């Protein structure tokens, strides 16, 4: 799933206090922020960048009720229709006794489903490789990547970033998607493969 090679101006900040006004200025000036890579979740940054809320929790709810329904309908079918077992003369439809398993399956479906959805949405998987704009983005730098179009004057943009407090600025040509690879090898993109 190659996203194509694009040109980026990359600005690195070392303080979230500087990053926030910079994000605002960059957006005001009309530049397109590709992404901001941070070493930890910076609260409010998603709003500052204008990202919409995630609806992952809604997916979690849907998985949860799927679990509830699966458990209840399966146990009802087994004990009332498929093999009604006489357990001490108690009712076949023993709803209170099924609550524990129903609850466990609700939680199980929701948790497993949400984690898989999370991995799918963020394209996370073993052997997935992505371009990293700066190795310290997982350590102590807040890395802002701004996408360049034909009209972007990158010299001007670099100056603009410097004025807004970026400590380290450079221009990179990078693949925006992901490819199958390992972090100890040079990148080998899909497009470089034969027959792409």
């Amino acid at each position: 799933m190659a996203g194509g090679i694009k040109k980026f101006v990359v600005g690195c900040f070392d303080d979230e206090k500087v990053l926030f006004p910079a994000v605002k200025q960059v957006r005001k000036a009309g530049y397109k922020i590709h992404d901001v890579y941070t070493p930890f979740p910076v609260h409010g940054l998603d709003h500052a960048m204008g990202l919409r809320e995630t609806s992952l929790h809604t997916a979690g709810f849907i998985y949860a009720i799927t679990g509830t329904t699966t458990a209840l309908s399966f146990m009802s079918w087994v004990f009332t229709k498929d093999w009604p077992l006489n357990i001490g003369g108690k009712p076949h439809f023993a709803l209170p006794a099924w609550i524990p398993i129903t609850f466990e399956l609700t939680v199980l479906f929701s948790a497993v489903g949400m984690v898989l959805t999370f991995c799918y949405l963020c394209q996370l998987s073993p052997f997935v490789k992505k371009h990293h704009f700066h190795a310290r983005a997982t350590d102590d730098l807040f890395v802002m990547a701004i996408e360049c179009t034909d009209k972007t004057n990158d010299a001007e943009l670099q100056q603009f970033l410097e004025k807004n407090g970026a400590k380290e600025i450079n221009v990179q040509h990078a693949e925006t998607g992901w490819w199958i690879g390992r972090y100890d090898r040079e990148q080998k993109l899909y497009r470089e493969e034969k027959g792409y």
Partner: protein
Amino acid sequence: MSLLKYESQIREPLVGGNKDYHQVTEDIISPIETKPTRLWYIGFYISVALLLFGAYSVYREVTYGIGQWNLNKTIGWGWDITNFVWWVGIGHAGTLISAILLLFRQGWRTGVNRAAEAMTIFAVMCAGQFPIWHMGRVWMAFFVLPYPNSRGPLWVNFNSPLLWDVFAISTYFTVSLLFWYSGLIPDLATVRDRAKTKLRKMLYGVAAFGWTGSTKHWQRHESLSLVLAGLSTPLVLSVHTIVSFDFATSVVPGWHTTIFPPYFVAGAIFSGFAMVQTLLIVVRKVMNLEDYITIGHIEAMNKVIVLTGSIVGCAYLTELFIAWYGQNPYEWYAFSQNRANIFSPYGWSYWLMMFCNVISPQLFWSSKLRRNITVTFFMSIVVNIGMWYERFVIIVTSIYRDFLPSSWSTYYTPTIWEIGFYLGTFGLFFTCFFLFAKYFPVIAVAEIKSILKTSGENYKAKMTDIEKADAEKFYVEEVEHAH
């Protein structure tokens, strides 16, 4: 935004020393990048030796049958189920720290959650061994699963608490594992990006799932953590509730008690925190993490211990009172003769349990003792011994005298293979924990960074009133109005 969350100056800092973001990474990740110490090797080999002894004990049990254990006519559940309940209980503290304290917005959890969650997973792995090998014909273990089979299909009994346990423990293990690993992904990416050797780059690259730290990914990650915490909270309460149902839904005097679910959950958290203390007091010392797992953290956990210990104490007294008040002669006999009578065969275990779980934790009302590492370490072991005896008392003293006095058993003591099995689970637990401490970040690096500027010692000292006022104004302008 983390920097601008107001945190009272009265609270002691959660991260000590003069740290910045890079220093945090350095402190926590660098032990992974160096060779293990001699102490680590010694500990690891002892654990592996115990594990092998346990494996041999289990091998004997499988080959020669349950007769390798001293279980008898009335005592069908002995050390094995005692150990099962004990290990499951230990696991509960990890989920409490990572899930319930996350919902309660307790900042101090960030220092201890990763190791506690790992402890949960390893403890549940150990717990699972006991019911599985207790089955005797372990190759039939899959019979507990509701799968279409050639016997009818004859389904499992969904009304049985033992089957509820199968679902509860396996769900608990899966969800804990997912929660733990999804939290680990960003930190593994940090290890990957610092890696110097090719092998490490490859292995951590695979383990980190290609994490980049994108803002959108963090937003989803936060949402995922919050919902998983919300799911784990009732889950952890349900797991020990269901374990207690194994006893409470029976008609055995001493087990047939409605107080069991809350009493078991409190006891589980009590023993779990004690185990967290035992592990983390060693870890912080050996890995030089005193700035992250501070005396404040230890004190906070001791407060949980004194609270849950007192709840457990109340439960002991309540069930004793109700046994008398209920006027059921069998119930009262189980409590007054089999347990509270110190001269009865197992009376000593009841009073040992009372001493370890109810009396000794009361020391922690003193803040001086709560903040004393030696006392805490000693107490954590006392509590775990006490909680093991609690399960032993519940199980053995309730069943060694049944309704037919002619079958009252002789004194039950475990065989060497029963003890070996228990020691083997210690081996499994500590082997896993040693590997975890060596190859994974034992503290959640990203989470520590997110509280560093509100709770770090150096930042807290610098934050004057003027800066605080500025920060609040800034917060309103930049964050609230941004969307």
